[in-house]
């Protein structure tokens, strides 16, 4: 659970890397025919390619091709089994995972329950420093693997039953555990990945061996490209293209120029600079699709200026979300009036009710009655392209509330967080969230519960915490969602943060491919994409 670094499109060329690409591969371009052609997809240089160490979009795009998840999500974003045959539990505490037979790793090794157990233990072992480490915290025995010299190397909650079955015991019942299994932290790793039990080979990351629809072709060519080809022994749904080249770019604008020139096939994120011209440049090859990102304005609720919920509600009512999404974001984001993303089961429109409506007269009245501060500061990270909308918001607050309002940029998000954690007065500050798996709990827990990993604003409501806990421990999904929704209603009353915008994938592709789809995690669907003949 984490606030992932929101990808570039939020505003800026944050795309974390660099690359190179186009012409080197020019030779492949001409070969027509859907079977031999190469589909190229823009990524940034991934940070890592080990499943348990991959949290950013570029790495997870590649990993998603090389591995097949236990579960995936249907159109309603409910989980269904893919590599798993069944994922069941009677008490939501002890889960039995049965694997489908027939899956093999790209080196021919059979996928067994042990492959999963080994990979998860590796990810959870503190000294390995894996980025997805916190994802395993619900599994029994996780705590023993943490610290400088952990007590154990294996989680006691993972037990192999037979070659294709294993059980997972959680610390406490968790209804959404099956949903979490779609995340790449829960991929298996082959024996070939380890040089000794629990020790990953250095070379593994350069050419990860997975059990997915594609296998590596050669090794990871840093700053350049990662090539994969169809793995013919894959038992699941077969991809329609034979080869995929993940081409590494440092700047989205360079990739955009390549898409226009048909030199690159898919650009998962249209750069902000090109948003206004992209629809006419690309025509029907300019696409949007739902995505889980959520942008909001947080308040230091421990600060007496902002501790009154009415002050926060008044500020919310003084912001014209529709205007900002239209003029600043050119419709590439949508106004948010709820506390969880619309892609989730259990999402309801307008849970903020009246406080989410743009109503300057009410806002001013409420603000004055509640005695809001005479100067509002909105802090943001200057490297994320947030200046435009913060300025627009600040201007609206000035006009509509009759107060002084300014935007204040911190160089990096980390600097902003440090200040918030030290309770340095920064005023209101921006935050963003991208889900790791589609459950309301992935928003409510980390963002708003008292001990939430990303609750930097000190919001604490015991009743809310209780409801989220009850939801997670519920017997059925419906029961869980009902609890989560009650919890969300409390948020609407307390307004610890102001929802601002939900994101969308805004992507484009060349005229050489069709059926380009993107999922909620900003990844191109590699199985569906086809070469246009």
């Amino acid at each position, binding site marked *: 659970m984490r606030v992932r670094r929101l990808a570039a499109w939020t505003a800026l060329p944050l795309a974390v890397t660099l690359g190179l690409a*186009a012409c080197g591969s020019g030779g492949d371009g001409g070969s027509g025919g859907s079977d031999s052609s190469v589909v190229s997809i823009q990524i940034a240089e991934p940070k890592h390619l080990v499943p348990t160490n991959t949290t950013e979009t570029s790495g997870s795009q590649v990993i998603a091709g090389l591995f097949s998840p236990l579960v995936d999500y249907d159109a309603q974003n409910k989980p269904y089994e893919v590599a798993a045959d069944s994922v069941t539990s009677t008490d939501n505490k002890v889960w039995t995972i049965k694997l489908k037979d027939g899956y093999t790793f790209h080196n021919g090794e059979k996928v067994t329950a042990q492959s999963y157990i080994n990979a998860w233990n590796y990810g959870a072992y503190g000294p390995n420093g894996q980025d997805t480490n916190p994802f395993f915290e619900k599994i029994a025995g996780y705590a023993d693997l943490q610290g400088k010299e952990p007590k154990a190397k294996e989680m006691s909650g993972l037990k192999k039953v037979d070659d294709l079955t294993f059980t997972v015991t959680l610390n406490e019942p968790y209804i959404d555990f099956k949903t979490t299994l779609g995340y790449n932290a829960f991929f298996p790793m082959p024996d070939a990945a380890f040089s000794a039990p629990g020790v990953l080979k250095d070379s593994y990351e350069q050419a990860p061996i997975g059990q997915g629809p594609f296998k590596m072709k050669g090794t990871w060519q840093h700053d350049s490209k990662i090539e994969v080809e169809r793995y013919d022994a894959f038992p699941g749904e077969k991809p329609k293209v034979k080869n995929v080249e993940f081409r590494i770019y440092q700047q989205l604008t360079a990739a955009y120029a390549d898409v226009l020139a048909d030199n690159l096939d898919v650009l998962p994120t249209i750069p902000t600079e090109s948003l206004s011209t992209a629809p006419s440049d690309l025509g029907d090859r300019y696409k949007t699709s739902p995505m889980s990102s959520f942008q909001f304005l947080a308040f230091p609720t421990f600060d007496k200026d902002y501790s009154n919920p009415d002050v926060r509600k008044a500020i919310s009512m003084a912001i014209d979300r529709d205007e900002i999404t239209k003029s600043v974001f050119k419709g590439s984001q949508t106004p948010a009036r709820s506390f969880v993303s619309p892609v989730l089961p259990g999402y309801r429109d307008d849970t903020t009710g009246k406080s989410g409506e743009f109503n300057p007269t009410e806002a001013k009245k409420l603000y004055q009655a509640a005695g809001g501060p005479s100067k509002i500061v909105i802090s943001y990270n200057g490297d994320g392209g947030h200046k435009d909308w913060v300025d627009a918001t600040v201007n609206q607050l000035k006009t509509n509330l009759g107060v002084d309002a300014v935007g204040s940029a911190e160089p990096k998000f980390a600097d902003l967080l440090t200040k918030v954690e030290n309770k340095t007065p920064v005023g209101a500050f921006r935050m963003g969230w991208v889900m790791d798996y589609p459950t309301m709990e992935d928003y409510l827990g980390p963002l708003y519960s008292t001990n939430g990993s990303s609750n930097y604003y000190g919001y604490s409501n015991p009743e809310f915490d209780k409801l989220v806990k009850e939801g997670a421990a519920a017997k059925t999904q419906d029961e869980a969602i009902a609890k989560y929704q009650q919890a969300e209603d409390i948020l609407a009353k307390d307004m610890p943060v102001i929802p601002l915008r939900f994101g969308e994938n805004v992507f484009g592709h060349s005229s050489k491919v069709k059926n380009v789809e993107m999922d909620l995690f900003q990844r191109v669907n590699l199985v569906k994409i086809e070469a246009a003949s």
Partner: protein
Amino acid sequence: MFRYILRRLLQMVLAFFGTTLIVYALTFAGQGDPIQALAGERPVTPAQRAYLTEKYHLDATGVGGFFYRYFDYVKNLLQGNLGESLTGRNIGDILQQAWPVTVRLALIALAVAIIFGVTAGVLAGIRRASIFDNSTLVLTLLVLGIPTIVLAPLAQYLLGVKWQLFPPTAGSDPTFYALLLPGIVLGSLSLATALRLTRASVAENLRADYVRTARSKGLVKRRIVIVHVLRNSLIPVVTFLGVELGNLMSGAIITEGVFNIPGVGFNLFRGIRTEDGPLVVGIVSVLVVVYLVSNLVVDVLYAVLDPRIRYE
């Protein structure tokens, strides 16, 4: 001359330690919390924090801790080990991959500057106040006035996307042709300066006493220009181009970014953007050496070209 070079080499050692110390201090002192910076907007778990603290020796704090880390770094550096980037890649390997393409780009840019800049400069110098002279004056003004950050995307859009004369980006293992457009863009700035410099120098030398003497003793104009004027006029130009080569070798952050060329500037930019301190310091340390050496070469070259200059 030998003593001069030796002295310069000794100075270089001092300069190297001074600059790396400053760069190291600036890179790491500015980071409030390097571990949080590495994680971006994600919360950092205690397990990761412990792991990274130990890995990067962040447990030693204060001035003592800083020098401890710096000397540790220098020790490795002297053994030829540039260390690892925060993503675990060997910085020596990164540079080894990045340099060849940057060098190729730099040579193309330099060739453009020499072929067009110097030639046009000589012509403009000979035909002062002619249409050619005036139009190159305006053109160079224009080029010098447009920053690369505008020029590069513009050239990419027009020549690469709109008219499709060149590939819009170059990529990892680019052909000469793919590097041509970025090379021209990169070279255009040095071209303009080289042209101005050559023109001024040629124009000045044409009025010099020795040219008048040559002319009065009846030498043909061509010989005067090529043998007498050109040789003397090129001294400042060669100096400029030598320094410029050092500059170009350190990579062109903007051009390499726009045309997606994974050279040195490109990696440096990524290092800065992702706050990869070790990568930035590693690249800059090597760049310091490149600058020092190229400066020395230019200075020595100066003496070779102009016999009046003597080094002791």
